C-alpha cells in the first residue's frame, strides 16, 4: 500500500521526478504526490500509467476532502503481473481518447469536466466498468476513509450507542 515518504524531502523528490499532471510526480518505479506526502512503488505497470489511473479514480469518485493517497491505495492492487496488461491497454485507450479531444494525455487535461467528458466516452467499456466497480469497495471500504465521511464503523466494542448518542439529534 502507500506509505508516508520519510526518506525524501519534497525538494529531493522533485529533483528525481517528472511531473505527471498537476497532482503527481513519477520516477523510476514510483508514483508520488506532488506534495511528497505519500509515495507508492510500482513494479508491474508504468509509473505514469499508475498516476493516470489514480487521477481516473478520483475523477470517477471525486471527494475533495479525500486525499490522493486513498485513491492510490484503492487502485494499488492493479499493480500485478496479471492485471498490468489490462491496465496498460485501458490507460492507453484513455490517453488516445484524450488526444482525440486535443489534450496531450488524459492526465494533462486540466479541468475535471474535460477529463469526465473523456471518461463519458468510455463509460461502457469493460475497462471503465472494472475500475469503477472495483473502486466501490476499494475506496469506500477503506477503514481509514470512513472518518472523513463521519462514519463511525462498529460500535459493539464501545457498548453500542445506547449511552453514546443514538438519539442525540438536536435540531429536529
Amino acid at each position, binding site marked *: 500500500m502507500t506509505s508516508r515518504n520519510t526518506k525524501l524531502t519534497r525538494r529531493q523528490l522533485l529533483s528525481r521526478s517528472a511531473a505527471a499532471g498537476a497532482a503527481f510526480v513519477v520516477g523510476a518505479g514510483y508514483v508520488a504526490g506532488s506534495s511528497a506526502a505519500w509515495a507508492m512503488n510500482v513494479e508491474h505497470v508504468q509509473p505514469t500509467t499508475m498516476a493516470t489511473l489514480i487521477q481516473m479514480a478520483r475523477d*470517477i*469518485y*471525486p*471527494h475533495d*476532502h479525500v486525499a490522493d493517497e486513498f485513491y492510490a491505495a484503492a487502485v494499488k492492487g492493479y499493480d500485478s503481473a496479471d492485471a498490468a496488461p489490462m491496465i496498460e491497454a485501458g490507460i492507453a485507450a484513455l490517453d488516445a481518447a484524450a488526444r482525440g479531444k486535443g489534450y496531450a494525455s488524459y492526465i494533462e487535461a486540466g479541468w475535471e469536466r474535460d477529463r*469526465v467528458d473523456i471518461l463519458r466516452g468510455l463509460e461502457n467499456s469493460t475497462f471503465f466498468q472494472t475500475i*469503477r466497480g472495483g473502486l*466501490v*469497495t476499494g*475506496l*469506500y*471500504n477503506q477503514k481509514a*476513509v*470512513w472518518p472523513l*465521511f*463521519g*462514519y*463511525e*464503523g*462498529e*460500535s*459493539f466494542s464501545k*457498548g*453500542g*450507542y*445506547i449511552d453514546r*448518542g*443514538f*438519539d*442525540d*439529534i438536536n*435540531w*429536529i
Partner: protein
Amino acid sequence: MAAPFELSDDSVVVIIGTGAGGGVLANELAQKGVSVVSLEAGGRYLPEDYINDEWESFGQLAWLDARTTSGDWRVANDFSGLPAWIVKAVGGTTTHWAGASLRFQDHEWKAATTYGPVQGANLLDWPIDPREMDDYYTKAENKLGVTRTGDRAGLPGNNNYKVFEAGAKALGYEEVSTGRMAINSASNDDRAACQQTGFCFQGCKWGAKWSAAYTDIPRGEATGNLEVRERAHVLKIEHDDSGKVTGVLYADADGNQHLQKARIVCVAGNSIESPRLLLNSASNMFPEGLANSSGQVGRNYMRHMTGSVYAVFDKPVKMWRGTTMAGIIQDEARHDPSRGFVGGYELETLALGLPFMAAFLDPGGWGREFTTALDSYENMAGMWIVGEDMPQETNRITLNHDVKDQYGLPAPNVHFDDHPNDVAMRNHAYKQGMAVYEAVGATRVFPTPPYPSTHNLGTNRMSENSRDGVVNKHGQTHDIANLFISDGSQFTTGAAENPTLTIVALAIRQADFIAAEMGKNNI
C-alpha cells in the same frame, strides 16, 4: 446435545434449511417428541462470531452460490449474479433480518377477492381464514418477543427515526411508531436488551434480535430429538415407486455425498432454493420435478415492491447509530385503489453504513452527482419501502443448464419483471417518502432503486385447488403426502408486511399438523 440419527433411520423428519421456517419447525417438532434431522447448507455462527463490518460480514454470511438473473428489474443489471441478499448459515436469514414483525391485514389473505381481477397478475386467495391465524400469530410474537405485543414495550427511537417521525407527522400521517420488532426493548427470554449498536443486518452481537440460530435451534437440540447437520447441502429428494419421498441426497463439507432416509421431508431452503430443489429432483415418474403437477413450482416469484428513499439535511443525522430498522409509517398499508394501485405498502426506516451506501445508493452511478451525495453521508436519513407485489406466472425460478453450481447442478435463474401495479405503487411510495423528508427540511432526496431481494416469496404457493398451486393449507404438497414446504415459498400472495412473522406462525401451525398426522399414521 445433538441426537445422532442413522442415515438409514427412516423414521425421522428431515428438514432442509434452518431459517425462520425450517429452524422453527425443527424446534417445534422436537419439543413434541418428533425425531428431526435438519440439514443446513451453511455453517454455524453465533453472536460472538458476527462481524460488524458490512462487506466482511457479507463474505461470512451471504449465500453466494452461482445464480443468474433475467427480466426488466434493475437488480438483473446492477447485481446480475446476486438476485437475493440472503444468508447461508444455521438460522438462515434470521441472522440478517431487521426484525420487523407485522401481522398480515385480514384482507391480504384474500387478495383475489379483495382486489378483483388484475390483468397479468396470478392472484389467488390463501386457503386460510385469517381467524385461524390469530392464535398462531400470538404464539409467534411470544416466541420472537415482539415489541408492542403482549406486555412488551416499544423500542426507543434513534436519530434516523426522529427525522422520519417528524416528517411523517408534518405530513399528517398518524400510524407512525418504532414498530413491532423482534428486538428486545428489555431483556427477555434469556436474550439481552437492544444496545442501539447498529449492524442489525450483520447478526446481532448482543442477541437482542431474535434469530433461530441462538434460540429455536439450540433449544430443539437440547431436547435430544433434533440433530442439525451443518454444511450439509441437499442435492436431491428421492422417492419410491409409489411416489412417496423416501430421503434426501446431500453433500457434506468435504463434498462427500450421503443419503439420509426420511419418513417426511420438509423443504425450507427459501423461495429460490426450494423450487430449485424440487426441479432438480425430477425423475422418470416426475419429469417436471417433484410436486409439480400444477406446473406452478418456481412460478409466481415475489420479492415485495421495494425501493428506498434517502435524504440529505443541512445538519447531522448519523442514521447508522442504533437499530437499523427503527420505525414505521403504516398509513399507506391499506388497500385503497384510489391511489392508482391495489394493495398497500409500509415505510420503514433503514440505515446503511458508508460501504453499502456507496454500493446501493445508485448502483453504477459515478461523478459528482453521486459523490456529493456521499459527502453528506453524516447528514443523511433513510427509509425502505416494502409493499405487496403482484404474483405473475412468468416471474419464476428456472434451472439454468448453462451455469452449474459447485456440485455440478444447474444454477437457479431468477426472472422478474415489475408488474404495472408494482411500478405505480413504487412511484407513489417514492413521492410520499420524499415528501416525508422534504417536510422537515431535506435539501436533497434520493429515490433509490431496489436492492437484491431479501423477501423471496411465492414459488411453491399454497392453494385450495391442486391445479392452482403446489401445497395445501398446511404446506403439504398436493401431490406427495409426506413432502412439505415450510418457508416463504408457500406464500400465496405477499401482503405488504415483512414476511418473517408469518413464516414463523405458519411453521408453528405446520408442526401441529405434522405431529397430529404422524400420530394418526396418516403420513
